[in-house]
């Protein structure tokens, strides 16, 4: 795509260097003369923003590592955490530590905002399709490494969320059959999250950003081999369809970076904790779990998918199922180039796919919302009802059931119940005292009565039932509770998860085979710029 090099060394030194290490030539061809499509919009500036964010995280991170101490301290009744204290020291005592720490912790969120925009951009404009599959896969790999890095980094301040987030995530591995427990202990370096865990997490948190930097080089290399895609999705036809990287893309990227930094700075200076959790200002306590554990916002959609599976599927229990699906949600991105069957790249020209894409974005955000909620929160207005049944008048008969083998219990109870019904009991009630003892009560004669109570929550219902029972005063009151349809956050997350996977596994593969693409205007499909103005005018 870049074509033959246009670099001409100007000075004696650069000529000398160019013959020995053509590094200036490489930079010139990649970032100055490199042809970029004319029609790139601002969604295409997020690559530059991401590069900047990586540099920001590495620089601030290296500085933080000069002051941070990865040690949990000793557990003596209370918990004195050296790691927690060292981050507090950075914030309070180290010169400009507050600034650098805020940049790093807010930076992680900004990094993810940028990467999500970048990824959705790629999805919309079909940037994952041939010939850019490797470019896309390298991007997915960078995203995966970012997730790992951010997870590891979040444990370092050793607050309550750090500790319990790490506990929950390492426990996910325990779901793997047979070897899960060993892998878990291997990762933690002990039987629980403790000092060995913190130390290795710090080591890896320091390492991974440099791995990301390495993969980023491959990512940009792949980009420069295939050339950039563009909002029309139509490959550039001639040199006139492109402009040189410098000054055009450089300036546009720089402008976008400045705008992004304005938002970044607003958070750093005015809302440094807005994207985090207050619980992380409580030092880690292995004996008390915070009431509501949630990961950082950027991992919430995956957390929602993890929790959506609350049922077993054959040999796969709910826990393993959730873990599999969560990893599958990322894995599916890697094979996307082969799932989408449409040869039209840009969704601008795929009217139906475009609608599905918009729904997909909404679904992803809704998954994030669901991940932050209490999973059993009921979303629809429901009325809980219970029927109280009792008998007015009549005679009460009680039979004691006692067996020696618990296996015979059910049969004995049944026999006893039958005896009572045969004796004319219109209503029987079984109270089990243990595996081998029970009382069976039966009511002979009397008239059945029913009363219905209702409430807006299960707690209120129980209260109402208790009051109603007292009012009735009969010896046996049977309570039949009706479970109304509850649309919980878990159900919502299940629907959203279904769409997430359907988008990749059903919609994109099938739609590509059936849809009629919108018409690409000739001004885009043909290399109009390289023609005579007369011809172009005639076509318009």
């Amino acid at each position: 795509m870049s074509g033959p090099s246009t670099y001409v060394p100007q000075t004696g030194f650069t000529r000398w260097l160019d013959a020995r290490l053509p590094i200036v030539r490489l930079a010139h061809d990649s970032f100055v003369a490199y042809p970029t499509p004319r029609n790139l919009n601002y969604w295409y500036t997020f690559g530059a923003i991401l590069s900047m964010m990586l540099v920001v995280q590495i620089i601030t991170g290296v500085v933080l590592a000069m002051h941070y101490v990865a040690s949990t301290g000793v557990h003596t009744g209370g918990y004195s955490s050296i790691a927690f204290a060292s981050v507090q020291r950075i914030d309070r005592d180290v010169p400009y530590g507050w600034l650098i720490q805020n940049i790093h912790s807010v930076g992680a969120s900004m990094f993810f905002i940028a990467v999500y925009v970048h990824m959705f951009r790629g999805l919309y404009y079909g940037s994952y399709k041939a010939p850019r599959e490797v470019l896309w896969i390298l991007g997915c790999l960078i995203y995966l490494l970012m997730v790992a890095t951010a997870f590891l980094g979040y444990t370092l301040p050793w607050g309550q969320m750090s500790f319990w987030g790490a506990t929950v995530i390492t426990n996910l591995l325990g779901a793997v059959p047979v070897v899960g427990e060993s892998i878990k202990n291997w990762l933690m370096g002990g039987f629980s999250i403790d000092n060995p865990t913190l130390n290795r997490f710090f080591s890896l948190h320091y390492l991974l950003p440099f791995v990301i930097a390495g993969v980023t080089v491959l990512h940009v290399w792949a980009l420069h081999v295939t050339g950039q895609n563009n909002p029309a999705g139509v490959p550039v036809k001639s040199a006139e369809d492109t402009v040189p990287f410098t000054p055009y893309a450089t300036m546009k990227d720089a402008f976008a970076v400045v705008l992004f930094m304005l938002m970044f700075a607003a958070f750093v200076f005015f809302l440094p904790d807005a994207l985090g959790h207050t619980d992380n200002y409580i030092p880690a306590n292995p004996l008390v779990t915070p009431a509501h554990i949630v990961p950082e916002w950027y991992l919430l959609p995956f957390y929602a998918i993890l929790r959506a599976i609350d049922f077993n599927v054959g040999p796969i229990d709910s826990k393993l199922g959730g873990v599999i699906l969560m990893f599958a949600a990322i894995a599916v991105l890697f094979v996307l180039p082969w799932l989408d069957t449409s040869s039209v790249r840009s969704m601008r020209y795929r009217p139906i796919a475009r609608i599905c894409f918009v729904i997909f974005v909404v679904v992803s955000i809704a998954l994030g919302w669901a991940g932050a909620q209490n999973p059993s929160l009921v979303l629809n207005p429901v009325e809980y009802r219970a029927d109280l049944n009792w008998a007015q008048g009549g005679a009460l008969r009680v039979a004691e059931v006692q067996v020696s083998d618990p296996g015979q219990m059910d049969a004995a109870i049944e026999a006893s119940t039958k005896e009572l019904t045969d004796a004319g009991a219109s209503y029987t009630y079984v109270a089990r005292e243990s595996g081998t003892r029970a009382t069976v009560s039966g009511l002979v004669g009397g008239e059945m009565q029913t009363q219905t109570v209702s409430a807006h929550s299960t707690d209120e219902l129980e209260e109402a039932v208790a009051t109603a029972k007292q009012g009735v005063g009969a010896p046996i009151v049977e309570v039949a509770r009706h479970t109304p349809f509850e649309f919980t956050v878990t159900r919502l997350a299940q629907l959203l998860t279904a769409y997430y996977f359907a988008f990749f596994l059903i919609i994109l593969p099938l739609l590509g085979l059936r849809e009629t693409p919108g018409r690409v205007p000739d001004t885009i499909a043909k290399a109009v710029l390289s023609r005579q103005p007369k011809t172009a005018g005639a076509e318009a």
Partner: protein
Amino acid sequence: MDIQETRVAEATAGAHGAPEQDEGKSRRDFIFVATGAVAAVGAAMTVWPFIDQMNPAADTKALSTTEVDLSALQEGQQIVVTWQGKPVFVRRRTPSEIAAAQRDDFAQLKDPETDMARLVQANGEAGKPETLILQAACTHLGCIPTFAEGAYGGWLCACHGSQYDTSGRIRRGPAPKNLLIAPYVYLTDTSIRIG
């Protein structure tokens, strides 16, 4: 055939004919495979220490035990002690909690176990029904449940809503297993050792 091989083949072909050529080739193949095999084993042996170093170290693994004095524990009271860095609930149950646990021995359980079986000491002897010793970590993803919440009178894990009964058995929610029993033995009537 690489260059060197060609040269050797030519030299031998002239003097001794085809059979020698085959022999030379299979000898090289053998050396090639043997070298590869040694290198692979060597690589695996070098990698192993770098993997194994992440496993729990000897001091972490050293069988740590925790002794707990139960004399001050009142009925209906629960203390949390740590064993191998993990929290353990020691709960002195009330008669009604015990009764509730035994009554549900044969109820529909996700991980069926009788209350009696959950009281057995590490040495196989029966425990005391009033003292329940549980590893506190929720069997779902390891949060610490709180007592006296949920519909079964036992523990509720706030993380993803698992509910345990007064015997620590899983009754509702995503957790797959009952709360684990910590391995304990009575040292005296009022003290136990965990581990």
